[in-house]
């Protein structure tokens, strides 16, 4: 049963990943990317990493892929035909990819026959996955956790600084001017005579 689920999701994942790179329309690419993230989340679930599976759906599908979609919509990219150079390079790339696949696969799988390292942070299967993660993320990995927060802050600042631009003719509040107003310069007491007006 688990094996069937694995084969279904892995096949879908590889097919979706291929479609991401091959699809001509960038919107289709983004949608296939979302689909491949869902399949990867399902594979994570099969491996017993429930929290990471949900995190993948929330972060990637909820934030990153939507960001891609926004940019694709905003930038008005025209759909292009696949050029001839694509097919010229394709056989070379396929051969290189095959060699690389075999190398990477065997480098990992063949070496696994040796003695397995002892688990430093063993998984306790009696409590839930998120409980397990929380127990060590906020203790042993606390500094890493904070650095991850800093990375996110830096990314946010970088994105804001990069895309910020000054434009002429835009009406804006000048907060320093508003705050530094005093009663003297903004309020005038006028004595109005009856029948004459101001």
């Amino acid at each position: 049963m688990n094996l069937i689920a694995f084969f279904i999701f892995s096949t879908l994942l590889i097919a979706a990943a291929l479609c991401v790179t091959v699809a001509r329309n960038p919107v289709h690419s983004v949608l296939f990317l979302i689909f491949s993230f869902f399949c990867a989340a399902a594979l994570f679930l099969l491996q017993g990493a429930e929290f990471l599976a949900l995190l993948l759906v929330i972060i990637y599908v909820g934030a990153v892929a939507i960001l891609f979609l926004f940019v694709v919509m905003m930038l008005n990219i025209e759909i292009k035909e696949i050029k001839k150079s694509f097919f010229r390079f394709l056989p070379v790339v396929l051969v290189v990819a095959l060699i690389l696949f075999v190398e990477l696969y065997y480098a990992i799988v063949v070496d696994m026959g040796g003695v397995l390292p002892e688990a430093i942070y063993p998984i306790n299967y009696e409590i839930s996955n998120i409980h397990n993660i929380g127990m060590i993320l906020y203790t042993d990995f606390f500094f890493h956790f904070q650095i991850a927060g800093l990375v996110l802050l830096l990314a946010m600042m970088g994105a804001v600084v990069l895309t910020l631009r000054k434009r002429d003719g835009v009406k804006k509040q000048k907060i320093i001017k508003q705050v530094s107003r005093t009663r003297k310069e903004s309020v005038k007491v006028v004595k109005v005579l009856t029948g004459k007006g101001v």
Partner: protein
Amino acid sequence: MELLTYQDIPASFYIAVSTSIFIIGLGGVVLNRKSIINFLMSLELILLSANMNFVTFSSMLGDLQGQIFVMFILTVAAAEVAIGIAILIVYFRLKGNIDTEEINLMKG
């Protein structure tokens, strides 16, 4: 020796899948003749394959460290996408398109 992950699926199956995703992402970067946005999407696929490898080994060894690292990779990936897209938008403002063919400012 067949090494099994949590649900008794051999770890080598997962590694085959993640390696394929890696190769597909790499091919997407190399063969890219479209816009930079496809480039970034291929990079996301590569990072996903790295995450899958981490989770596989974490599940196989019964060690939580791999899963913790996946969270940090997710953070870095999100940061990378934010910065990448910001650069993309600045570039689009300058040039008016984001085709990979037309990026030849440095004559490389």
